[in-house]
């Protein structure tokens, strides 16, 4: 069996597919996967004016926007993440970017942050039969924390439904491994080491996903100090969390939300969350210590 590899860009991130099978069949499904990734982007990107997310944001404080079953399911899933994380995982917290943007030369003032906090709160999102309403003008929804991971699962499912039993879907580091590699062994996925060249660890994966969340990838330097791009929706300030977290789970979306919630907590409580999450994980602390938990 032949290993076919494809690269494309979608959802603002490089994507890669590896599909084991005949070239012709793999080409056909790879194209469908790419279209599916682009569909997710068109539908859920907050940068595309016609997306459902942009429509909901534009109607904030005014009217409820009807959503389809898929969007409702994504919001329902996000609701569960919000409850499980005591409100840390909050799709409305993106407004904090207005004061914590990368061109910032000074730390935001308390007043600036508080003005943003007034617009944050998943409990202020009303989901009814009529649709989704952000109850205050100026509120914003950002599905970035769920959609890319969910898209990786959905694309892997497309490949599986087309009859393939060996493939890797990688959407900007959110990875699903279907079946075994052509050598008949688990796929081996390198976990990024934020501090050095080469992988931090290698995860053997069969029918599982891995997602990584790290404050090291995207951060801001303000007045010579490094600030994580991960912002606590309760305080409005960056979190002093772990350096990076990778989580392995049956679905990429579950792995991604467990990793994200860990990164939204302070280092110690992030580690405690991971330990109790039931999932396998690799975490790196700010001191550079690597912690491997619940190995499979």
């Amino acid at each position, binding site marked *: 069996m032949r290993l076919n590899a494809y690269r494309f860009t979608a959802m603002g991130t490089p994507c890669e597919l590896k599909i084991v099978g005949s070239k012709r069949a793999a080409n056909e499904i790879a194209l469908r996967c790419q279209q599916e990734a682009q569909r997710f982007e068109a539908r859920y990107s907050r940068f595309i004016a016609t997306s459902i997310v942009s429509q909901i944001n534009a109607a904030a404080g005014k009217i409820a926007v009807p959503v389809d079953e898929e969007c*409702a399911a994504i919001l329902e899933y996000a609701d569960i993440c919000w409850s*499980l994380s005591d409100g840390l995982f909050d799709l409305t917290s993106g407004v904090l970017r207005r004061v914590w943007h990368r061109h910032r030369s000074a730390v935001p003032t308390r007043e600036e942050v508080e003005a943003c906090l007034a617009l944050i709160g998943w409990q202020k999102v009303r989901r009814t039969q009529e649709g989704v309403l952000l109850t205050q003008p100026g509120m914003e929804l950002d599905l970035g924390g769920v959609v890319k991971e969910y898209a990786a699962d959905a694309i892997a499912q497309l490949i599986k439904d087309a009859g393939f039993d060996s493939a890797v879907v990688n959407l900007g580091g959110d990875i699903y491994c279907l079946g075994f590699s052509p050598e008949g062994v688990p796929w081996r996925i390198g976990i990024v080491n934020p501090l050095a060249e080469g992988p931090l660890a290698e995860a053997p994966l069969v029918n599982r996903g891995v997602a990584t969340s790290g404050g090291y990838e995207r951060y801001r330097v303000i007045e010579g100090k490094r600030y994580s791009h991960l912002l606590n929706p309760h305080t409005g300030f960056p979190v002093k969390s772990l350096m990076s977290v990778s989580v392995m789970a049956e679905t990429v979306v579950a792995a991604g939300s467990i990793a994200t919630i860990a990164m939204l907590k302070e280092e110690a409580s992030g580690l405690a*969350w991971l330990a109790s*999450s039931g999932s396998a994980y690799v975490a790196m602390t700010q001191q550079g210590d690597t912690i491997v938990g619940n190995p499979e």
Partner: protein
Amino acid sequence: MAKSLKSPLAILSSAAMSMPALSASQPSETLVSVATSIYQEGDARSDAVAFGDQERFEVKTNQFYLSSPIGRNWSGTVSYDNEAMSGASPWGTIEGADGDYQLIMSGASIDDSRNGVDLSLTRHWRKQSIGVSVGYSGEHDYHARSVGITYERDFLKKNTSLGLSASYSTDDITPTDAQLFQRLDSGSKHSRSYYVSINQLLTPVAMINLGLGLTRRDGYLSDPYKLRDVRPGKRLERTFTAQYRHYFDWQSTTLAANYRYFWDSYAIDAHTGDAQLTFGTGSRVEWGPTLRLYGQSAADFYVPWDDYGLEDTIAQSSDHRLSSFGAVSLGLKARFKMGPAHIVARYQQYESKKHLGLRSKTQAHPGLIRFKVVSLGAEYRF
């Protein structure tokens, strides 16, 4: 109760599985399990036995179970179990010289085995499934065949699900030594069961399930091995069940609490309550205790000792299971996970007592049992 409540991983995984791209409710993995268990009844007290052996039942059971997806929209299960039974069972009761009831036991000659096979096949759609099942169970003197159908449907983003099921079974008995002991040559009974249940996810960490069941049995419902056992030929049984699951962050604990109320046309009322705690849910070792409490009233034709003065068409039975009694059982369960392989160990001890029964008027039945069950199993998922 597939959507059970466990670790954040389990909660999020199950939530993810209800999203449209992943929402085939078909099982996504194959499970093979084997288990062996020993059920051992405590011997009858010597002063409770007027005649026969004191050694009560011992049952050794081996079980095999396979569940697997078949193609894209189907799944199937196969289960097989084999039981080897030995020991003595009560034939009847008599009134002893001091007014106590005593047991007449069989000799410890019962040595039988039972084999059972059940097959099921389910077709899954996005929000509903329909399954059919057939079963057979056979001993040298007993053969039972059953068929069943189940329907499940999810509502409201899978937070609510409805289950309906119906089954029919027919059992034939041909008692051994029928001529020697003037037992019935052969008899049969038919049972029809209907069950409706509703499952509701209350919060991401709490779920409730309510169910109503109805079973009608008719035919030969007596115990042919008792010296005198005449039971009404029709029985209507009703059950109400409530199950609650809650996940707590503390020690990753899952609480499973269940209540069942049973009432039937024999005038038996029974309440069962049980609770199981599982610590370390989702981790490599899950373990926890179980407690079960049971209490029932006696059947309206229950007699403490067999009355041979009555005509053998008049209902009477001295079976301890039809007396007023209650029971307490305590158990421990542990699951050790090594990747796709799990080892499951269980221990349970059970003791029945007359004073835990409902509306008890008669003396304690001397045949009330206590038993222990030890079981060990292995599971593999792929």
